[in-house]
């Protein structure tokens, strides 16, 4: 009774106030999200038959299927993104565990802040760091020669592994934070009880920790996958010409070749892939989208 009444009071009363609250949300969602994507879909479904004359066609999607380079790149991007997500999870989990469950007091909050710091700096700067470290004239090859491991400086850039390193590095924060949040809510007493009842590290991890952290794992993985799939900077700079990342194809069609219809089709394919995997991730982990995004 009281709740209803206070909600009434707190709610805006005049039509003008209501309009002022609804207008920005609708302009934003319709004008910047819904309509542009509808337009993109329409764009991808037409083909130019003569200057300034277009007709409905699946030609752009057919090009994607007929041209091995395109769909190879597409599959490769998806596969690399999945690998990168898995690597990120494997690397981030022990760290999140250490920060939440082993570190105490000051050290705990300090380590968490320390995780955040690199991500306050632009991805461009971080990638510059990796380039200085890994290129043939860079720091790591220099040390490999100095230590006598290699005779000549080796080029460490432009390999798939390099791209993975860069992608994992860029994604770590987006995995650590949801994992740490999920583990934080796991009561230590549960682990102590399991230990007391004779559980070993592996069984505790599998039967108690992972089920509890599942929402965090799902949230982190979905966000990391999505960001990796849509990444452009890291694959192009660390992978160079060999990177074959799908976002490059979109950029090439849109900006370099000015073939917007083809670019729109590629964009839509990427969006569908991303949405499908996000949906799949949610379905497998039994999570709801809203909850996951709030966690992330």
């Amino acid at each position, binding site marked *: 009774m009281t709740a209803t009444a206070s909600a009434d009071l707190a709610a805006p009363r005049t039509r003008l106030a209501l309009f002022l609250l609804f207008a920005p949300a609708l302009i*934003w969602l319709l004008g910047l999200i819904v309509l542009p994507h509808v*337009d993109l879909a329409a764009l991808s479904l037409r083909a130019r038959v003569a200057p300034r004359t277009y007709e409905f066609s699946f030609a752009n999607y057919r090009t994607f299927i007929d041209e091995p380079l395109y769909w190879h790149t597409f599959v490769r991007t998806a596969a690399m993104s999945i690998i990168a997500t898995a690597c990120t999870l494997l690397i981030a989990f022990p760290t999140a565990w250490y920060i939440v*469950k082993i570190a105490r007091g000051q050290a705990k909050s300090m380590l968490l802040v320390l995780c955040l710091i690199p991500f306050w700096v632009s991805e461009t700067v971080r990638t510059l760091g990796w380039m200085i470290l890994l290129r043939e004239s860079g720091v790591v090859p220099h040390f490999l020669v100095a230590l006598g491991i290699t005779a000549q400086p080796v080029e460490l850039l432009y390999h798939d592994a390099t791209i993975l390193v860069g992608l994992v590095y860029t994604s770590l924060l987006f995995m650590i934070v949801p994992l740490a949040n999920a583990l934080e809510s796991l009561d230590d007493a549960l*682990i102590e009880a399991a230990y007391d009842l004779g559980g070993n*590290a592996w069984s*505790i991890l599998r039967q108690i920790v992972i089920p509890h952290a599942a929402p965090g794992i799902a949230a982190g993985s979905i966000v990391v996958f999505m960001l990796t799939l*849509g990444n452009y900077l890291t694959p192009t700079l660390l992978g160079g010409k060999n990177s074959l990342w799908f976002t490059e194809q*979109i950029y090439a069609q849109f900006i370099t070749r000015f073939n917007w219809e083809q670019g729109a089709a590629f964009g839509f394919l990427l969006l569908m892939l991303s949405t499908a995997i996000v949906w799949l991730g949610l379905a497998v982990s039994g999570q709801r989208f809203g909850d996951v995004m709030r966690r992330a």
Partner: protein
Amino acid sequence: MIHSLPRSLLTRAASGAYVASFFAFLFLPLIVVAVFAFNDANYPAPPWRGFTADWFIGGVGRVGLFADRPLLASLGTSAIVAAWVTVLSVAVGAANAFLLERVRFRGKSLLALAMLAPLVIPGVILGISILAFASRLAQFADDFIGVELEFLRPGLPLVVIGQFSYIVSIATLMIAARLKRFDTTLEEAALNLGASRAGVLRTITLPYLQPALVGAGAIAFLMSFENFNTTLMLVGSDPPLTVMMYGRMREGASPVLNAVSLFLMIASALLALALLQRPDARQD
């Protein structure tokens, strides 16, 4: 396992080593960038040839950061774009938060979900969809009304719009989360003590929301400053810093980039410190 359970010396050493190497991995690229901003060589690479401040103030045959006009201009461009995105995102985010928390209407959960959608759309696609839609609108205006709408062509207004389109989702989440925890009887108490509706908003609700508004503003500024994917698709003739740096990195880096990067690191560290110092700000 956890701090309260016994761990063998070996486990302790192994987990310590793991975390140490994790943080080394995390900071190595940043340290390298910072160190080579001071190397006395024309190329940011080993060996170490001695300390110089040339890459900031300039030297013989070298243009330092403070004299690199295009780079400084791009820094300014980024700041202007980020300022616009911040103001728009916080304002619209606050309106959205009030809409979600204070108004009852049909389809609210759907709208709440739609507000999160931009976060799962890859940035490149946000960029191209807005680019294509804006140019269709511009074409339309040109063809039928005969007006040239310059701001719909690739350029800074489009960059602001593109970045805003997903950063506002984050601002909405942050502000709505705090508004949700607000005890509305405080507003009733203020009304009861004679405050007008506007007075309640000014003296009670907004001061309560302030940490979230500031936090959302800082995050919005930072995300805008760092954004690359969406910006790349929408940029016109005056590139923001990330796009400018990207272009130069492809050509082969000069240590000026290290210098500007170091500047960014210090600026973000100061911003982070300022935010963490604020009481109450960390709970979001």
